[in-house]
């Protein structure tokens, strides 16, 4: 089958190298149709079939713009999530779908799209940089490795499942190991790396889910696995973890 991957708002959601998630998927599936939806365009998922909807890292003002552009499509997004459509929202994109984004430093407290019970608190002088390691079903025995580099911490409802539970590192905030959001095939995570480049086993699992009839092929597999193995060995080394990377 031909995969359709929709990248939302790449002109503003292009920070921290995260668009490489899509570049890599496109190299793994050269036959995939990549739809790049601009901020003033109507998203392809509104009227057509999309196999994966992606939104990546953006500025704080970009988050507010994304909220405004996605708000009219809230019901459709909920419908798609309920029907099992795959979504991948990385870095601060997940917060766009939450209930509130509060940023005292920049003097705003705005409602999000409101799909998930999540509140984001942005501290412009409290940037958090750290690592996260944790297992996910898509990657089997190979834990996900990722980085956080963010101004925001997220509080989620107790019944909202995470993308992963951090074996090392923090989750949505410094007092929980539950990281991101997973609802059906919606994955939202603050992790950057880029996630799919740094985690080839996760990418293989995602590709298998997107197209169960096609054996997943990883672009530059040997190099990707070598990079993953080297990083995993480093992540397993306790000397490389700082006290602030622990759940408090």
């Amino acid at each position, binding site marked *: 089958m031909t995969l359709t991957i929709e990248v939302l708002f790449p002109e503003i959601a292009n920070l921290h*190298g995260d668009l*490489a998630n899509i570049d890599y998927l496109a190299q793994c599936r050269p036959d995939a149709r990549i739809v790049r939806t601009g901020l*003033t365009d109507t998203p392809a998922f509104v009227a057509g079939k999309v196999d994966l909807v992606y939104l990546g890292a953006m500025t704080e003002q970009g988050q507010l*713009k994304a909220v405004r552009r996605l708000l009219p499509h809230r019901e459709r997004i909920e419908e798609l999530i309920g029907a099992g459509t795959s979504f991948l929202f990385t870095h601060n994109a997940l917060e766009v779908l939450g209930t509130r984004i509060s940023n005292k430093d920049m003097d705003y407290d705005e409602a999000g799209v409101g799909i998930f019970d999540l509140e984001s608190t942005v501290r*412009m002088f409290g*940037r958090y940089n750290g690592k996260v390691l944790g297992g996910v079903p898509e990657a089997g025995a190979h834990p996900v490795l990722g980085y956080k580099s963010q101004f925001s911490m997220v509080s989620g409802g107790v019944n909202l499942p995470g993308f992963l539970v951090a074996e090392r590192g923090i989750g949505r905030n410094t007092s929980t190991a539950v990281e991101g959001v997973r609802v059906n095939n919606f994955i939202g995570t603050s992790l*950057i*790396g880029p996630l799919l480049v740094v985690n080839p086993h996760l990418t293989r699992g995602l590709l298998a889910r997107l197209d169960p009839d096609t054996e997943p092929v990883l672009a530059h597999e*040997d190099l990707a696995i070598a990079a993953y193995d080297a990083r995993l060995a480093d992540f397993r080394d306790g000397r490389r973890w*700082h006290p602030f990377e622990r759940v408090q």
Partner: protein
Amino acid sequence: MRVLLTIWVAKLAGLAIRVLGRAGTHTPGLIARKLHPGIIGALRHPSRVIAVTGTNGKTTVSNLLTDALEAQGLTVASNRNGSNIAAGVASLLIGAVSWTGKPRVDVAVVEMDERSARLILPGLAPEVLVCMNLTRDSIKRNAHPDYIAWILSSALSESTSLVLNADDLIASSLGTDNNPRVYFAVDRLPSDSDRPSGAAVDVGICPVCDHTLDWDYWRFNHIGRVRCPNCGFRSPEAAYRAHSVDAERSRVTLELDGESREARLINANIVNVYNEIAVAAVLDRIGLQRDAIVEVFDHIQPPTTRSAVEEINGVKLVRLLTKGLVGVACSRSFEHVASFLGRKAIVLTVDEVSERVTDVENTAWIYDADYEYLADDSISQIVVGGVRRHDHALRLAIAGVDPARIVTIESETGAADRLDLMGVDDVFNLHSVHNAVSTGTVVQERLRARLGEIS
């Protein structure tokens, strides 16, 4: 009295440090800020204070301005040999006053780290602030250019006159409508294109209506001139423009607020063309005669570039600072490599030194860098050395480099021995800042020796 005590303690500390043979450019300010956190604002400042900031070019512009003003017979205090964060600026200002706290220089030229603006600008309240550009820097520290622009704007006094780069829509948006402002720009160049490319383009949509912008010209990152096809928004008009850049004759035409003057081109690198027109704009705004402004460029030189070229047995050996953790800086280096026309081989060692053992470097930044410049048949081999070598190898492959041309080796310095020099015209030693000596110099010496052995 507290201010005077702070001045004395800081000056004495500076004297003591200098007696010990150290430069003492940072510690006096550090001590002063401990004793009096508001010391930058509490000190009496020289009658003219010019602050220079931005991601790239601030050191060069500060130095050029200092040289130009000194050439006019003015006494100038600058932090050219010190730090550009709050402690360094405090040191500069303490050095610029007497033991009784009276200003003893005519002008202070303050190079300011853009992220430190909130600690510096409220007290400094410069007469003029120059912002060269705001492009992506460290993900960890600087996040994104809009963040830095917000820090600067939040800390700016409305009395400060702004000299801003019109070709940078983020830098040109600094301040409020109350800030007096002028803009500088470099007119379209033959090398410019009509649409942006690359990973790090931070201006894509109209700030008024969100529509995708069109470009009159695009240069790099988000630098260029834009217009909105939907609402008519445009980049600001620049009263100060450089054009007719003639590298061969070392001449450039400077438009100085309605008056056209030909001047010596201090350096053909586009960054230095921006630096030159920015310096001209500042000097014009503070009232220097235009003849004198043009004459300034006959006598001042930008600092040496961050690259060095030597020729050994007919092969160019190019050492190039390629700042790790900063994708856009690496893009400029890779672009420079691509500009060489011969057959090329590259040693690439840009791991972050501080994260080799006690952390695991976040290599997301390499996807903000345009490794695609290296996906060219003229590059026969790229040897990547260091802890994160596999990440760079994967990035190169994703960029389109044939994996058969990529070699990985754990030892950074050992990379020099793995490079195949046969039939190569240009050899590149690309290293970062913190490994410049431990790796860059060692690799350079090894490559030099190997090229010397070629018969």
